[in-house]
């Protein structure tokens, strides 16, 4: 019932679009009726274009995410637990963080050339910041008394991180990771559209330039579905991992 309600509006719009295109008899290089988009999607799925290109994009996005988020996690722990490191790095972080990842595309092309390496490094750059900033905030927000407890019990440095700091901040880190995942897909597709001959973004650009609006729209919808699926999978994991307590922690 809920699903049916949610589908009323998009389905009605699609029918309207289809009917309008057929009634007016437009022959267009920039628009395509939903039926043609569906056919183009079906064909591109069948001949392997979409699965293959999706695999390329996800490979670059997820590799970059792993590197960026991993570094963000480690650096945020260092910043959070060793104040001199935070003071040392604060200026550099504030200067580098506002640089849009897209602005580094020319730099990456010049230094790394086309291919996975440049796309991965740009995704890593872009996903490093949200994890670093949210993670650092999460660590500085840990209840100070919990850190006193770890001192009084004489937990080792490693014990303090694994038994107090990480469990206390894990829900917040997971939110940061979800944000970074969305960023990774955006940056990967942007890099592909702008320069890199790889992935869904490149296929999308090619479809647009070769006047194939049906395939172009099919790919745009597909990217939306991929992003939605990724976020859904992470939300599901979040509920499974942290349960109601973890979700409450996030709300706080």
């Amino acid at each position, binding site marked *: 019932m809920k699903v049916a309600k949610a589908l009323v509006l998009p389905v009605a719009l699609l029918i309207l679009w289809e009917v309008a295109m057929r009634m007016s008899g437009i022959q267009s290089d920039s628009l395509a009726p939903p039926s043609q988009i569906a056919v183009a999607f079906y064909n591109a799925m069948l001949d392997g274009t979409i699965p293959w290109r999706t695999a390329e994009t996800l490979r670059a996005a997820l590799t970059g995410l792993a590197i960026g988020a991993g570094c963000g996690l480690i650096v945020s722990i260092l910043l959070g637990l060793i104040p001199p490191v935070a003071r040392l790095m604060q200026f550099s972080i504030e200067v580098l963080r506002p640089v849009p990842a897209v602005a580094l595309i020319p730099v990456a092309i010049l230094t790394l050339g086309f291919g996975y390496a440049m796309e991965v490094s740009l995704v890593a750059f872009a996903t490093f910041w949200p994890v670093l900033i949210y993670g650092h905030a999460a660590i500085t927000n840990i209840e100070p*008394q919990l850190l006193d407890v770890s001192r009084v*019990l*004489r937990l080792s440095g490693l014990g303090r991180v694994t*038994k107090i700091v990480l*469990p206390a901040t894990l829900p917040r880190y997971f939110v940061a990771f979800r944000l970074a995942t969305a960023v990774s897909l955006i940056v990967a597709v942007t890099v592909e559209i702008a320069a890199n001959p790889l992935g869904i973004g490149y296929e999308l650009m090619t479809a647009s330039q070769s006047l194939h609006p049906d395939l172009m729209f099919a790919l745009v919808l597909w990217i939306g579905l991929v992003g939605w699926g990724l976020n859904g999978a992470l939300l599901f994991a979040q509920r499974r991992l942290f349960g109601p*307590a973890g979700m409450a922690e996030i709300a706080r």
Partner: protein
Amino acid sequence: MQCAANTKNQGCETGYCMINVAPLPRADAAVPLIAFHGVSHMFGNRPVLQDINLTINKSEFVCMVGPSGCGKTTMLRMVGGLQTPATGEVTFAGKRVAGPAREISFMFQDYSKALLPWRTAAGNVSLALEANGVPTGQRAARIKDLLGKVGLANHADHFPVQLSGGMQQRVQIARCLAQEPSVLLMDEPFGALDAMTRQALQDEILRIIQASRTTVVFVTHDLEEAIYLGDRVVALYPNPGRIAQVFDVDLPKPRNQLTTRESPSFLRLRRALFDFIREGEA
């Protein structure tokens, strides 16, 4: 006129003992276990402690009372190794306290922030065992024993949010005991509990430490609680924190919530402490 029989009687004119700084050791414990030597401390420009000299003997129960800002929690944190004094030093068994030690355990006031919310009662007790390197195989039995000691045998699998305030504080007691400490530092541990729970826990702590002969330093706002629990009550003046007087409590043990609190000595001490605190505020 009643004075503690085993202390020197200087300053004992008014029916209770007033011994200024650094009282002499008691007969049952020749070596001071904890000692403050000329300790002063500042928070920024604000002096919080000024020239504190105090010795605490083994197996003694010392209560510290005083208004907010008298530095009693800071003194406790110094013994616990959580804070280093700016001048002077704090010693434990003759050695300077440089950091937290296994023999000294610290019980925090705010139980909701001192327990790990993602661990069960048993898991929270286990934390102390893990920190002390107790082998995995021995932990379960130790945890069961400790939780039984504080009356939580049936709540091992409950998370802190599922326990009442008193129960959470019992978990904290069990976690402190897991360290097998010779000194227990308690920072207003029962301040947030209702009166009935507080009295139950007062008796519980007396019973537990009597068996193990643990030394206790207990910070509280509650003068009656200080007299009821303590062998000595250290009263502090605020701004900056100074030791004003040390009262000896010569009430018989074991203490009883009704008879002890009704005994003339208790009432006399209570009167003296109340008068004293009022003077300090004036």
